[in-house]
């Protein structure tokens, strides 16, 4: 092809009529004749692409690419993104969103996080002026859910809410005020707004991390921590990554590029263990299909291989885990100092004065308590001896020996029967995991949403610990479900809970007050455990233990009802008990439809707040790029106004003072100064002040002014004692190094990664060690229901957004394998009913070859209003509480979002029929 060039002219030159542009071409440095035949003066087809004359029209698109200002924000949706966004403003209105892509690199050795931000954030502005926007306060005037509203002014709404709140406090007590708002990390000022008011009144603050089934119970059980995971840049330090039940490419979208960096640049082999061939499998090195709910079996078999083939890191295990600790053979309890000497110090404590190991030279030796460094101790892992206790001779053996016995029959061959996965593949994976350093598991809700999630977590954590990967950069057990990591934790806590606080595990509360025990086939077994846990105070149950009924629910920045497992029963039994439901939201959600008052909230682009996540070590601010639309108020201003109104009404009613006893502490409440208490004497009047309070009060952020964050994303300065590693400059955050490198005792009963739990209930239930229990079989319906997280929503956020719905089907759907569809004469796009004895939901069928036979895959998050009869994806699902998560034992004590029953939901069988 001969290369020819035509003269380049300015974009707006005049029509040529066979003239040569002498002077023009000298300026441009190019000279060519323009043949007359090529002139653009006729409609004859001609070919002169490089010489177009009429380019003035190009201003059309240039004029569209114009905006007046750009401001900073992010999105508070519990996606773990915490992405840095730029909001573009035209004529004082939000126009569109683009990623700011301005994260600095952590260090020269690590890739940067940019651009961070997904398709949902890219149309977040749909919520600004969209038709779902709540513009002014609404009061329900029909039945709950009927959709009859009366518009009120803020003063009217707040006065009524204040009076009804005071009615409840006066008549029943403040513990009847219940408040649900999740995930402080995604917007701690907004979280604190209502929480602070509730705290000052004496209300109850609800948990979310356990309720959402995001909490992996195996982490508090084994490690004594809620969760601590590596930021995603650390993935590039790994050499072997198993994404187990985690669909990174759909649910960790901003971090998907890090996974590919780890793989393509860092040489890590990426293996996906899961059921359907999902978006993450598409770009993995190996897809490992397993039957739904069989992950526990596969993990135990991998543990068995590591143990039986001596592939474990003996030195690490001896130093960091409870595997060398001695257990009594008579009652299955750890051997404790009090057994040998009843008069020992701290005999009554759960640790009974301390634990023992068998040293190779010295024999029976107390486990050092002040640190993990063994010095010259060399514990024997596989030991059995007799010791003299105060009550006689007792045989003791090590946790390691018990573990070997426990796992002896959990062979890969056995696991093949449970999972359908070839024994030799299981064996190969185990060997590879044990011999590739560092190796990590990215763990997700594909595993965690099952009833025996605690066992599955523990079995996988065991694998990572046996191979010495916990506490090593590029290694470990990394769980990312739920944005629970509030980096500036101390400041947030002080802002939200200035005084003593009542907390409630939401799973238990929902179960009990919806009277789910009447429809739970597992209730007879659960009953003694639940009643004991509540009666002994191990698990709070507000407002009044097993007796009381809730009266008021405040909810903000949440769609609690939509996302409630068993929400059909919640509607039928729990909602009617409430005298008052107040919701604060910027979009009319399914929860709001059942509220008594809906107050208009500011969106993400209309307020000051903060955002942090497990996935990065950067702090991102929200700023009010525009003022709140219509009559919306920011969460902080709305609850401050409510505080002021309650104060006014309390004074008018002559009821301002009452005493309140929380955990033995008497709090003298004075509603006459409520507003002043809320604003701490005026210091916290503004949202920005509240944000600064958090920054000032947290080691992670102390020294930053809010405006520093507005200038550019900032890395946290340090990791406080709340976390498990120091934050080092130039290095990605990777957890548990304070214990593994720093040799500090783990925050567990034994001071070690604890795989043996000798709580009485655990011995009763046979789960002292990670062991096998099959998924629940609550019915004989042939398909397993899975409700994973879709890429196009964050739970219910964006579920009914037009931009994204047009990229889908416009209606909710269930995926079926072609065999299962054919068996039911179901074709693509047919209406079907997904049902079991709990309920039914009507959706479209999508026949997909990628779905495992025997599985019905129904995304969670769609709004109730999208379904016939408002029976959404929760309809076939109920709540089943695992008694292992009710226990109080050593380091397992109820603390909000750290320990409590999780809302597992995958052990659900359904059938599907044409509808």
């Amino acid at each position, binding site marked *: 092809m001969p290369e020819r*060039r*035509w003269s*380049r002219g300015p974009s707006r030159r005049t029509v040529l009529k066979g003239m040569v542009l002498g002077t023009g071409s000298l300026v441009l440095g190019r000279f060519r004749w323009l043949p007359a035949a090529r002139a653009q003066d006729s*409609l004859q*087809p*001609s*070919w002169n*692409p*490089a*010489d*177009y004359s009429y380019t003035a029209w190009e201003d*059309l*698109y240039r004029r569209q*690419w114009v905006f007046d*200002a750009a*401001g900073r924000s992010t999105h508070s949706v519990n996606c773990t993104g915490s992405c*840095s966004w730029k909001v573009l403003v035209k004529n004082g209105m939000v126009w569109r*969103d683009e*990623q*700011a*892509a*301005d994260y600095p690199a952590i260090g020269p050795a690590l890739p*940067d996080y940019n*651009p961070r931000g*997904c*398709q949902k954030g*890219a149309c977040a*502005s749909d919520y600004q002026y969209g038709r779902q926007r709540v513009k002014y306060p609404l009061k329900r005037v029909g039945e709950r859910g009927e*959709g*009859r509203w009366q518009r009120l002014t803020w003063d009217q709404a*707040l006065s009524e809410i204040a009076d009804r709140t005071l009615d409840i406090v006066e008549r029943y007590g403040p513990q009847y005020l219940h408040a649900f708002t999740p995930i402080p990390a995604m917007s701690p000022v907004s979280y604190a707004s209502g929480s602070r008011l509730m705290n000052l009144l004496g209300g109850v603050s609800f948990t979310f991390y356990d309720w959402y089934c995001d909490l992996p119970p195996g982490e508090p059980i084994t490690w004594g921590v809620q969760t601590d995971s590596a930021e995603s840049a650390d993935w590039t330090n790994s050499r072997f990554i198993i994404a187990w039940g985690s669909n990174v*490419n*759909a649910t960790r979208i901003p971090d998907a590029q890090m996974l*590919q960096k780890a793989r*393509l*640049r860092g*040489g890590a082999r990426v293996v996906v263990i899961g059921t*359907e*061939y999902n978006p993450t499998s*598409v*770009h*993995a090195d190996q897809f*490992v*299909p397993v039957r739904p709910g069989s992950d526990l079996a596969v993990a135990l078999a991998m543990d068995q291989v590591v143990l039986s083939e001596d592939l474990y890191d003996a030195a690490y295990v001896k130093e960091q885990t409870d595997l060398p600790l001695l257990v009594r053979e008579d009652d299955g309890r750890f051997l404790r100092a009090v057994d040998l000497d009843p008069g020992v110090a701290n005999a009554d404590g759960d640790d009974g004065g301390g634990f023992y190991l068998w040293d190779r030279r010295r024999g029976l030796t107390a486990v050092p308590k002040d640190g993990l460094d063994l010095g010259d101790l060399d514990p024997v892992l596989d030991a059995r001896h007799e010791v003299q206790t105060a009550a006689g001779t007792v045989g003791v053996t090590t946790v390691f020996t018990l573990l070997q016995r426990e796992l002896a029959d959990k062979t890969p061959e056995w696991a093949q029967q449970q999972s*359908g996965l070839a024994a*030799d593949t299981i064996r190969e994976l185990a060997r590879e995991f044990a011999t590739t350093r560092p190796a990590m598991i990215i763990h997700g809700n594909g595993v965690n949403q099952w009833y025996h999630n605690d066992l599955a977590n523990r079995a996988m954590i065991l694998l990572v610990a046996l191979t010495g990967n916990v506490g090593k950069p590029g290694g470990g057990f990394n769980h990312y479900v739920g944005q629970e990591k509030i980096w500036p934790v101390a400041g947030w806590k002080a802002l939200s809970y200035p005084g003593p606080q009542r907390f409630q595990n939401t799973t238990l509360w929902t179960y009990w007050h919806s009277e789910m025990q009447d429809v739970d086939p597992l209730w007879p077994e659960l009953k003694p455990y639940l009643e004991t846990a509540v009666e002994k105070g191990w698990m709070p149950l507000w407002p009044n233990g097993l007796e009381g009924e809730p009266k008021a629910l405040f909810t903000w920045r949440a769609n609690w009802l939509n996302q409630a497992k068993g929400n059909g029963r919640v509607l039928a039994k729990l909602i009617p008990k409430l005298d008052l439901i107040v919701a604060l939201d910027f979009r*009319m959600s399914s929860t709001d439809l059942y509220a008594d008052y809906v107050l208009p909230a500011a969106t993400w682009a209309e*307020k*000051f707040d903060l955002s942090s996540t497990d996935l990065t070590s950067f702090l991102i601010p929200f700023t*009010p790029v525009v003022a709140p639309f219509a009559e919306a108020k*920011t969460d902080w201003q709305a609850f401050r106004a409510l505080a002021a109104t309650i104060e*006014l009404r309390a004074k008018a009613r002559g009821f301002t003072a009452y005493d309140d006893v929380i955990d033995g502490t008497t709090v003298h409440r004075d509603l006459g100064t409520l507003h002043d208490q809320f604003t701490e004497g005026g210091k916290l009047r503004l949202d920005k*002040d509240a944000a600064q309070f958090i920054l000032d009060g947290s080691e992670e952020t102390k020294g930053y002014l809010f405006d520093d964050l507005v*200038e550019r994303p900032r890395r946290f300065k340090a990791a406080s004692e709340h976390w498990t590693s120091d934050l080092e400059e130039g290095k990605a955050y990777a957890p548990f190094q304070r214990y593994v490198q720093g040799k500090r005792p783990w925050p567990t009963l034994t001071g070690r990664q604890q795989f043996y739990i000798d709580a009485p209930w655990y011995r009763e239930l046979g789960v002292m060690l990670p062991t096998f229990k099959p998924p629940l079989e609550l019915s004989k319906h042939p398909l397993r229901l899975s409700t994973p997280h879709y*890429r196009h929503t964050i739970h219910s956020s964006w579920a*009914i957004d*037009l*931009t994204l719905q047009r990229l889908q089907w416009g209606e909710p759907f269930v995926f079926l394998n072609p065999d299962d569809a054919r068996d039911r004469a179901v074709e693509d*796009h047919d209406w079907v009913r997904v049902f079991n004895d709990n309920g039914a939901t009507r959706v479209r069928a999508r026949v997909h070859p990628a779905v495992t036979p025997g599985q019905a895959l129904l995304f969670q998050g769609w709004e109730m209003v999208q379904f*016939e009869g408002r029976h959404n994806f929760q309809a076939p699902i109920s709540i089943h509480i695992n008694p292992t998560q009710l226990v109080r034992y050593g380091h397992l004590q109820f603390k909000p979002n750290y320990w409590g029953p999780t809302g597992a939901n995958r052990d659900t069988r359904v059938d599907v029929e044409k509808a």
Partner: protein
Amino acid sequence: MPVPKLDKDELLRSEHQLGMVLDLNKCIGCQTCTVACKTLWTGDAGQEATYWMNVETRPGAGYPRGLAAPNGGWTPDGQRGVRGRLPTAEDYGTTYRFNDEDALFAPGQARFAPDVEPRWGVNWDEDKGAGVYPNTFLFYLPRLCNHCTHPACVAACPRNALYKRDQDGIVLLDQERCHGYRFCVEACPYKKIYWNHVAKVSQKCIFCYPRVDEGIATACSTQCVGQVRFVGLVDDPKSPLFALIHTWKVALPLLPGHGTQPNVYYVPPTAPEAVDADGRPTGKRRIPLSYLQQLFGDGVGPALDTLETELGKVRRGETSDLMQLLTVQRYLDLFTLPRAPNNDAWFGAFAGPGGAPHHVPAERTPSETEP
């Protein structure tokens, strides 16, 4: 109107050619690029079915449907344009709207539902793919106008309303000159020109030239969260695109048989090995090579071999220049625009008084209610 007949020698190159390389090993089908483009350029009435940028699951029917049929472009000798098919409304699918007010704010418990029954759409067969479980296979294919070197659309327009910019080869459709004949829509083998039924003109991707002229890459590229897209000059030996296309030969054109010489290239996808009924890897390719050859031509086999060889190096702890190139350490390395890149002015910088990010002053936000 006779089909255009052109002297092949008359097909001219622009001075330079902007293009893209999309690494299909990183595209996760998130549709962020789709939304980026849609919210910037094609949100008007008449543009409901217009997606200058869209991401398809392949194997799949594509958007609009019917892309697989031979369709537009040039004859094999490059002498004549092929007229091609005009997609029907059904090929684009149903454009529905929702009943937000009824479902959310009015009594009656109306179901939040589309007003027209959806039957097809831009991303209808998302995640479906082909094959039999557990050996189903699929990947994501982002598609936009290829700003071809020999654009059949330019040749097809009897009003000469389409042209290539000489400085960078961006193909543009003059919105004032267009009379809405849609010969260009027929001629484009990629069906990346869309008919606006309200404005009654054809419209296409403009390669974000208002941004490009300021040194900022296209919205689809800068907003791509997977770091999939290289943007730069395909004819500049110093650009990463040149290296991927000509040196490493791992970046391939889509449907090259149509003869338009597209300037958007794709690094073909690898995939995990096929497994047997018990999940054991079999060593066999999951995605049939013949399928990829249909899309990317005969270069795909050698390209995949190169990728696998280089991946093997990295796995063994050796350095691979190709993998370093493909997985940039710094996000901004993806964009090498000819005009001095204005990255600092755009990324992370905000336009407001004093150049600082704009927001409402803090003091304006408190409520009026005070005790």
